[in-house]
């Protein structure tokens, strides 16, 4: 089912028990280190660590596989464009034969371009894995409390949590609209990718109207429960606030990696592009 991306896994694990602030830090690292480093080995190692965490958190590996499959067409384009046209490209791997009109003999697939394509792939894939890793192993409440303790306004944290809750609802809505279209003779399975685009576009109208109506009903329901979005509030899950030694250690380690990576990149050039 499409909703797996945000469904919680309830299996206990080392990673699952970490404080939400540690997890948010990991998410932060996953989305910043990819820009600090330009080196496939560094990023490859980062991905390796994330995958170890995924295995530890007992997240369904099928999900990772599906994410990868989804990215294949995109990676294909990146591979082609970077491989042939990237300015870093020096070492030809394969040159288009002479007899091909216009580009023959001139255009070549180059090693450095291929490596750069790999780098882009890693930059996409790392946050794409980190996000479900954190969301699927964290109670939404803890996430909200964690965000609030990080001085993020409650209103924003709350919107975030409602969005997470609504994603599965919206997916089920998309499914039911698409079912309705198929039941009116729309043979999606026989259509090419490009012919499907207008079909997906037509989903948007009922979807947006439905979501707006839901959002309004939700707003009324929340206000009826004395919700005003004020920062002043108490928390039911207060215990979720205490850091264990292992959390503290990991936060220190995370911060060291973050600042360390920037310093060593600037002064020592660690993590620059190599091919």
């Amino acid at each position: 089912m499409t909703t797996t991306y945000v469904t919680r896994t309830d299996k206990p694990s080392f990673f699952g028990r970490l404080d939400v602030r540690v997890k948010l830090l990991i998410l932060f690292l996953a989305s910043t280190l990819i820009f600090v480093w330009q080196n496939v080995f560094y990023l490859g190692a980062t991905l390796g660590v994330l995958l170890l965490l995924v295995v530890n958190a007992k997240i369904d590996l099928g999900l990772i596989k599906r994410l990868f499959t989804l990215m294949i067409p995109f990676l294909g384009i990146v591979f082609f464009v970077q491989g042939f046209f990237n300015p870093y490209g020096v070492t030809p791997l394969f040159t288009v034969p002479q007899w091909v009109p216009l580009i023959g003999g001139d255009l070549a697939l180059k090693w450095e371009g291929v490596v750069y394509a790999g780098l882009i792939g890693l930059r996409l894939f790392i946050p794409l894995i980190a996000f479900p890793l954190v969301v699927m192993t964290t109670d939404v409440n803890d996430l909200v409390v964690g965000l609030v303790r990080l001085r993020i306004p409650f209103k924003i944290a709350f919107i975030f949590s409602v969005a997470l809750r609504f994603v599965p609802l919206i997916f089920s809505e998309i499914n039911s609209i698409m079912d309705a279209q198929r039941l009116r003779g729309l043979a999606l399975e026989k259509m090419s990718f490009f012919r499907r685009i207008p079909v997906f576009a037509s989903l948007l109208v009922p979807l947006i109207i439905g979501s707006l109506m839901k959002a309004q009903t939700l707003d009324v329901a929340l206000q009826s429960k004395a919700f005003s979005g004020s920062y002043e509030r108490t928390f039911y899950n207060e215990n979720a606030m205490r850091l264990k030694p292992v959390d503290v250690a990991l936060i220190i380690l995370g911060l060291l990696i973050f600042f360390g990576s920037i310093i060593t990149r600037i002064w020592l050039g660690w993590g620059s592009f190599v091919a």
Partner: protein
Amino acid sequence: MTEEIIVIKDLSYRYERSEEMALREINLRVKRGEFLAVMGPTGAGKTTLCLTLNGIVPHFYGGDFYGSVEVCGLDSVEHHTYELAQRVGMVFEDPETQLTAPTVANEVAFPLENVCVPAAEMHERVAHALETVRLAGLDEKHPHQLSGGQKQRLAIAAALALRPSVMVLDEPTSQLDPVGTDEVFSVVRDLNRELGMTIVLVSHASEEVAEYADRVILLSKGEIAEAQTPQRFFQGVELLTKHELRPPDVTSAFALLQPNGAGGITEYPVTLDDAVRCCRSLKPSLRYRDVAHQDGERKDGAKTVLQTRDLHYTYPDGTEALRGVTLDVGAGEYVAIVGQNGGGKSTLVKHFLHLLTATEGEVRVRGKNVNQYEVSDLAKHIGFISQNPDNQIFSDTVEKEVSFALKQLKYSKEEIEARVTDALRQMRLEWAIERHPLSLSKGDRSRIVVAAILAMKPEILIFDEPTTGQDYAGSRAILELTQELHEAGKTIIVITHHLYLLPGYAERLLVMGKGKLLLDTDLRSGFYATEKLNESFLTAPQIVQLAKMIQEEAPVRLRPLTAREFTDAVTIKQEALP
């Protein structure tokens, strides 16, 4: 205490960008501890009236607000919703959009967090609220894992945690099966009788209103058309019919049985117990007739169009939704599938449409294994109308909507035009051909969906809960439509838990529970198989219950399904009439 807890004076209200007044000149006083029911057709202003009680109207919606609303001494314009919400608890119709937290306990704690209740006290109050609605022990569950009745009780608990003086419930049971409805009503009754809480309840459920309310007001076009005790209120059968409301079955039966209060009884009974008592006191003058009720004949030997053999289905999360269903439906039948929410009704019909593929067993449509069809091919034979019309509308004019399928199926331009005109005429929607579907009323939107399906000329039509969220008039209109289609030779399948609507329409009854087919019989026998119905958490219509309760006093077998049939079988002796 008899102090007035709600005082509404000359209240009129108009929504922003609306021409019509939603409420006109409302004057209403509700005493502390009173149970007030609000009835009325769709669009009468019932929800708007509820929303004035915690200030959502006008604070949230804006618009023109005249007169005053005072709740617990607080004026609703001067005080913000944040304050009013701590005195007025609200429960809405749709359980999905009012539950926001990831666990049951957090759901109840949410309003307490908003008003800064300290954590220790919060834990106490959450536990207490959950106990009151009988959900104790489910604290850590995800609200989505609860049944419909449980979800609504959870919504009540969340409102309860703030210890309000007034509880407002806006059609809390209209999406629930009979057992969920009972659960909710019994909790609401306890709040009222044991905790003395003031209740304002909007509902179409006449039988329950008659049973529990102290007073009923009838809203019509934004005005209070009537305010009475339920006993008096439901006597006005004419007034109710005029406003498209349905009196309790027993009241209709007695109104037919003894028009003008004949037989020495000055008032018709409004509850089942009253009706039984009435029958007992009338006993000497009651006459019974053995009636052979006219039922639509089951066409044996008709070609089988839908078939399942030992059908099993397990959802990816491990839920066993179907556990061995074997079934044949013949061409031209009218079949009702009933059963509790989550009993497997929708899962079953989705197999005929190939939206789901059997885990085990076989499904055949028109003699061919369903796996050999594409969903889009099946669409030519089976039309499926699901509950929410808005998930089935995706074009920007009615014409495009109705021709959508025909274009997909590549009919010629002339053919498309002819079929669109035809389908719209059948649904009496010719006038709307140029309109945007979403600019029409909910009833008309449902009809557009039906028109779009009819344009494909399918021989089988499946309606999934078509009457949920509709008022009585709306429900009747839909069933009339199914009847017309049935008479035109179509095979009709209706999924519902509104049993009282089925007599006169459905011929065959399938009762589903826990993924199994519990009963497959004609409608009359099905309604009288009360144990089987109970097994699937359904209750027979009131008339059936009444007939069963007075059966031992009758010399003949009583089998009525409707008030009319009841009076065919039971009459009052002429001499007893003045």
